[in-house]
């Protein structure tokens, strides 16, 4: 039975125009016309590269204090000269581009290594919640049974919960490890994907292609996974980029409060917290640079999500 090939044209039903195929030329044109999206793509790529190679790139050990305590960053005028010296290899010690913390830790290196925690947590938590949420959402939307309704009710209840407080409880009481933060955030974000996918699946089940797949004798589970799921994923995929950004903000916020990753692990929110007291005294660099890093990174992920969403809406 399954050897019967369903022609492509039945996939979208007669009323809906088939979506334009994604070709290399169309992608290239999209990238040329959307400079904003390109910026987002560059930021996201850099953050991912740093998450993998950060410790290799960083000039200093992010957890090993240097003798220079609370050194300010070099003045803007001296930066070009310092870059030339660094490139030519004339410096005995690498430059503290962002200055040093009160303990003598090199801020530039710590900012570069921090994605190991922040970005990895964001991507991992989003990946887990994406898989769990879309599968549960598919089941709930496709087989509209009693248990499906229960899933949705439970996830609704979950969302009326004070989420920030719940996250703090979970992370602190489990011991404040990175893996606890990942699992907590994954649990918090799963309902988002569940709802997105579920409502999308509900709008798909009546389509002609589903009927056709059923008519040729596919099993229900095969129809759900092979035909309905790929057609219901777009909103969830768009959401993924946004969720990574949220997770980065969440991780940094938790650590800022002292309820996240333990110091001296380099993490942007923790760095801001340790620089906060010095800010009042006029030393701005320990908290400004990690803050800029969060701000730019999260904006990058938000750009990708928002631009794709705007395009999807058209």
């Amino acid at each position, binding site marked *: 039975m399954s050897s019967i090939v369903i022609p492509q044209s039945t996939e979208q039903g007669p009323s809906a125009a088939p979506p334009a195929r994604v070709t290399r030329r169309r992608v290239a044109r999209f990238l040329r016309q959307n400079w*904003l999206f390109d910026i987002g793509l560059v930021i996201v790529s850099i953050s991912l590269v740093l998450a993998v190679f950060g410790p290799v790139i960083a000039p200093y050990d992010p957890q090993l204090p240097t003798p220079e305590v609370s050194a300010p960053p070099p003045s803007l005028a001296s930066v070009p000269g310092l870059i030339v010296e660094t490139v030519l290899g004339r410096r005995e010690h690498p430059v503290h581009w962002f200055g040093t913390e009160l303990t003598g830790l090199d801020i530039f290196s710590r900012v570069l290594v921090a994605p190991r925690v922040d970005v990895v947590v964001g991507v991992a938590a989003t990946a887990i919640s994406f898989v769990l949420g879309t599968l549960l959402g598919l089941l709930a939307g496709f087989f509209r049974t009693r248990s499906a309704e229960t899933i949705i009710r439970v996830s609704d*209840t979950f969302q*009326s*919960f*004070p*989420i*920030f*407080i*719940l996250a*703090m*409880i*979970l992370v*602190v*009481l*489990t*011991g404040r490890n990175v893996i606890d933060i990942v699992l907590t955030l994954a649990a918090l974000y799963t309902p988002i994907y569940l709802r997105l996918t579920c409502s999308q699946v509900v709008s798909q089940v009546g389509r002609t292609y589903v009927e056709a797949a059923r008519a040729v004798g596919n099993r229900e589970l095969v129809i759900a996974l092979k035909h309905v799921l790929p057609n219901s994923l777009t909103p969830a995929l768009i959401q993924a980029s946004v969720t990574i*950004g949220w997770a980065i*903000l969440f991780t*940094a*916020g938790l650590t*800022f*409060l*002292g*309820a996240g990753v333990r110091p001296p692990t380099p993490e942007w*929110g923790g760095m*801001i917290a340790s620089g*906060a007291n010095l*800010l*009042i005294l*006029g030393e*701005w660099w320990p*908290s*400004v640079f990690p*803050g800029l890093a*969060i*701000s730019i990174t*999260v*904006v990058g*992920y*938000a*750009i990708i999500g*928002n631009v794709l969403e*705007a395009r999807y*809406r058209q």
Partner: protein
Amino acid sequence: MPWRYILRRLGIAVVQLTVISVAVFFLMRALPSDPVGHLVGFNASPQAIAHVRHLLHLDEPVLTQLAIYLGFESARFGPGLIQGNLGASWNSGAPVAEEIRTYLPITLELITYSFLVAVVIAVPVGLIGALRPRGTVSRAVFLYSLFAGAQPEFWWGLTFIFFFYVKWGLVPAPLGILSPFSPAPPRVTGMVTVDSLLAGNLGSFVEAAHHLALPVLTLAFVLSGPIIKMVRQNVEKALQSDYIMYARSCGLPQRRIATYTLKNSLAPCLTLIGILYAYMLGGAVLVEQVFSLGGLGQYAVRSILSFDYPAIQGVVLVTTTGSLLILLAIDVVHSLIDPRIAQ
């Protein structure tokens, strides 16, 4: 008013509240935390540990502990939840309800003003952004809402403090709502700005407003992002809808059309504002911490970091009740705007 709808929703809310309270109760006892160790400190003798365990009723079976918390064992262990008692904090020994009554109004004050400012900014900006979807202004609005919605508010709070306090001296030190030397107005609601007005104390009011300006600005900035986006999208959608086209073709005056558009597009925005407000009951903690306001969020952090179970349970109960009531209120308003929902 759709009373039957409200009653049914209240019933569901009570069930949700019970489920969440019990779930949090078990969650805290299932996770590997050590409140006794935290209280007795290092090098405590086994007898001391056993004694503290007994004092906290942690040596009872978990179900008995639940019964004590809920108040079914009030004869032996004193009143519990069903008698309206949230227990005493393990940190301070003070009744949790009393402590929450001190901290909650501060959070409410902060987030209510922030939402007012954010909405006052977001609605007109979102409207302008929706009028010409492809124009320069619309693009700028899109960029702003994207940017503001993706910012670490605690860092912006610190940055604002650096400029407005350290550099320019325009605002008072970020140390609470009133400076430590000013007398607080007599307590009525717990919200300093309201209480000082009730007491006719204009000086206090101005001082509180001055202290609140920067935290409110910080929070309103971050909140304005998602609200602008929501307003923009919904107004755009409404303007393209059939009923607006019909209204236009009937030759209705521009003002009537604007009313229809707003009425239909602000309802979803109201839902978003409600959800954000409920989230901020706990989520405002970052801004509270930066400005040392002493709100409910900070109380929650303190309690969680010191494993103060009764305080944590109290905060969860209160914030969950708050968010459920807010979401219910939003739905009721919704059903008044759009009667199809209540059916």
